[in-house]
């Protein structure tokens, strides 16, 4: 259990800023996720904490102590890799015992702790197996036990589920979360899978091109994205770029001009709305003010418990609308003209130039 402070971490490679002034705090016992597309710097940051990458500037503190100059093998940090990194020439038990042996623990204690760790990851009875006899999911459980058994101050995980198939991924994801909660170990988790990040994390840090875009709870990053990038990276989002704004913040889009004081002084804005918040006429009515417009259905995708409409509005604008429980109603066909409503309460606005969030509600 430990708190991690990253203060102004910078790292450059020739022609590339891998980490650009990263400043964040991971609280003790927290499940903290670094989320972003590949190349965003999340793995570089994780390896900086582990001690495998040396940063150019800034400092890393654990419980207030600087560890920048501490070699990786003294940091007492557990690490779990995407490719498991199981020692292929050692049995499962020897793999898990490795960190305890390097710490010169007595033999009896090692045996005891290995057995307990195996039970913890539900691999009791597999102690004497060789890694190649295990499935990918089991190997990752061994890696997890191996990292946990040394009682690390922090647990780092680098896309641990990416090599597993979909069903195992969900299963192990839940197990990792339960284990982390019960042990209360501070965990920093790297993934590019936004859904995984939403499900598993206490807080998410969304990164792009070496910069932090937003840090917040899953609910915050989903419902109040701080930048256009976060808005489009997490979940599905209809983005309407370059919407003209009139004097005093009058939105010139759809029918019924909306006066939005927050937009006063601007000439254009980028609007965004999630498909599940688009209201189609004949469905639920919008409560409160909404932008109204019309669109022609050009594609209907039925997926059982949900359906998606793709509509063309005003000739070029493509809008995706999400319909719940489509089995309970008649679906409109392609070519039908429908009314759409974007409730103001669910509408996101971003600066047309730098993509920062503009809060519409006061």
């Amino acid at each position: 259990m430990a708190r991690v402070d990253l203060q102004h971490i910078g790292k450059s490679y020739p022609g590339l800023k891998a980490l650009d002034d990263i400043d964040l705090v991971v609280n003790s016992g927290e499940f903290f996720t670094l989320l972003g597309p590949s190349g965003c710097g999340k793995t570089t940051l994780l390896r900086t904490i582990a001690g495998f990458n040396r940063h150019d500037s800034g400092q890393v503190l654990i419980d207030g102590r600087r560890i920048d100059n501490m070699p990786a093998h003294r940091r007492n940090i557990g690490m779990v890799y995407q490719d498991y990194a199981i020692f292929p020439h050692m049995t499962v038990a020897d793999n898990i015992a490795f960190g305890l042996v390097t710490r010169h623990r007595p033999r009896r204690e090692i045996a005891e702790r290995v057995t307990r760790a195996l039970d913890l990851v539900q691999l009791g009875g597999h102690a004497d197996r060789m890694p190649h006899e295990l499935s990918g999911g089991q190997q990752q459980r061994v890696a997890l036990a191996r990292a946990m058994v040394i009682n690390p101050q922090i647990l780092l995980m680098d896309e641990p589920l990416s090599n597993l198939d979909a069903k195992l991924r969900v299963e192990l994801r839940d197990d990792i979360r339960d284990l982390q909660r019960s042990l209360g170990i501070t965990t920093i988790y790297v993934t590019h899978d936004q859904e995984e990040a939403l499900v598993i994390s206490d807080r998410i840090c969304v990164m792009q091109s070496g910069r932090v875009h937003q840090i917040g709870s899953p609910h915050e990053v989903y419902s109040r994205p701080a930048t256009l990038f976060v808005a489009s990276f997490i979940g599905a989002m209809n983005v309407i770029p370059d919407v003209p704004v009139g004097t005093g913040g009058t939105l010139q889009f759809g029918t019924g001009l909306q006066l939005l004081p927050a937009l006063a002084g601007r000439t254009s804005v980028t609007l965004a709305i999630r498909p599940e918040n688009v209201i189609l006429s004949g469905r639920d009515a919008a409560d409160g003010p909404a932008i109204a417009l019309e669109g022609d259905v050009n594609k209907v995708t039925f997926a059982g418990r949900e359906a998606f409409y793709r509509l063309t509005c005003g000739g070029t604008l493509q809008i995706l609308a999400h319909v719940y429980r489509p089995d309970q109603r008649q679906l409109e066909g392609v070519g039908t003209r429908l009314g759409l409503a974007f409730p103001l309460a669910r509408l996101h606005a971003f600066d047309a130039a730098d993509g920062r969030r503009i809060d519409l509600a006061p």
Partner: protein
Amino acid sequence: MIAMIARIRPDIWTVVLLLTLTVIAVLLVWPLAGIFTASLTDNNSGEPTLANYARVLGHPFFQGALINSLIVGAGGMLGAALLGIPLAVLTTRYVIVGRDLLATLAVLALVSPPFIGAYAWIMMLGQNGFLRAPLADIGISLPPIYGFFGILLVFSLKFYPFVFLLTASSLRTINPSVEEAAEGLGAGAWHRFFRVTLPLVFPAVSAGALLTFVLSIADFGTPSIVGGRVRVLATTAYNLFTSEMTGNPGLASATSVLLIVVSLVVVALQRWSVGRRNVAGAMIRRPMPTRLGPIASVVAHAVCYAIVLASSLPSLVVIYTSFRKTSGPVFQPGFGLDSYARILREVPQVISNSAIYSLIAVTLIVILGTLIGYILARRQTIMAGFLDGVLLVPYVVPGVVMGLAFVVTFNVRPLEITGTATIIVLMLFIRRLPYAVRASASILRQIKGSIEEAAVSLGAAPGHAFFKVTLPLMLPGIVAGALMSFITAINELSSSLILYVGRTMTMPVRIYLSVLDGEFGTAAALSTILLVTTGLAIYAVFWVSGRNENAFV
């Protein structure tokens, strides 16, 4: 993610790097600079001059040698391709009984020294060769063995396994669906082979063929023994340097530089063709060999066995000859161990010399090669890239040239080591070091870096992590690399021939001299010892690398 660029930290690897750079500077850069300088220096006055190059490039004598070298290289390459490609296609595509035996015999032919083949062919097809008369009786009259015919015969039968093994392994990785797709699109068998299959294996074929070219122009023993009046660059450089009357280091050096340049161009071509080798696509299915009809099957078997047996013939002849009864240098009817008794009586030291030099060299090679391999595979620094390039040099520089470079360099204090065993060991070391480096780097690339990192994060110091986790996993690759270095070291002729003195003579040198003296019995007995040693080493490579013929390419 972003490629990790490790910094140079003052750890064990920095020490290794510095040691490596020193070794390369002393054993590679300095001697080659020496030969380069000698090529630009007047023999008598010691003044800088371009006269050596003017003569080498302008005089018909040297132009002839250059042209002959190119003919020998291209001919060897062509011959190897003509034997290797059909063998590869037949053994991978059709059911051929004894496929493993064929591959093993091909490997044996590959690693036995070419000059053994050269004199064995003289015994078979020379003026009084025991095959010449029977062949003439059935109407096959062959050109004289001495000259291009002999050289190309030896090279083709010696080097075809490179083309065979590389092509076969490439053919085995072609997804059969690709060929079926071509068939589905209406391509007939020939069309399919030339438009789909051949382009897919072309990189492997060209890599093998160009390798053959380089080895052919670098080979000294074969043209020297069986070349007759055909002079090539390698023999010319050797003769210019060693002949007592006209010894001419300047000209010998200029010829050597010319030889290096030709090799360099060909190796660059080879690297280029390998670099373009496309990564095998998704291997959903492995190709299955098809069964041929009875007549086609007999023909296919005949072709495969004819090629492989022809290439094994020299070894068989050598072994047979070694057991013939002799009286002095003259063969008598019947069998006996006279030749072996004679070598044990007269030259026991060459056997122990060969064994000791090779073992010392291989020990050094394994230690340094493994560590360099680690730097190449794990440290993506500029230095690692530089080392990778520099370690190609020993592949490119022919043994004769390297031998000359050592002699012109290491004859002054403080490194006055010409005439010692040390110089021969150092030569074997630097010439064969790349084998071990390559073996260790390639197995390391299969061991994920995260494994070692995991050990470090579990509390093992970097050195401890390497010895505890990485080294055990590398062991099979290291052993295979060591055996390969050993095989090539114990068979080394050309550079040893330049560096030896009476008491540092090795087996290949003694064999070569015996052949020149017409002492075929002694040569055969020594060659048999070499062949058996080599065969055992091959068996060991198969044993550790799980029967992978490509360990030899």
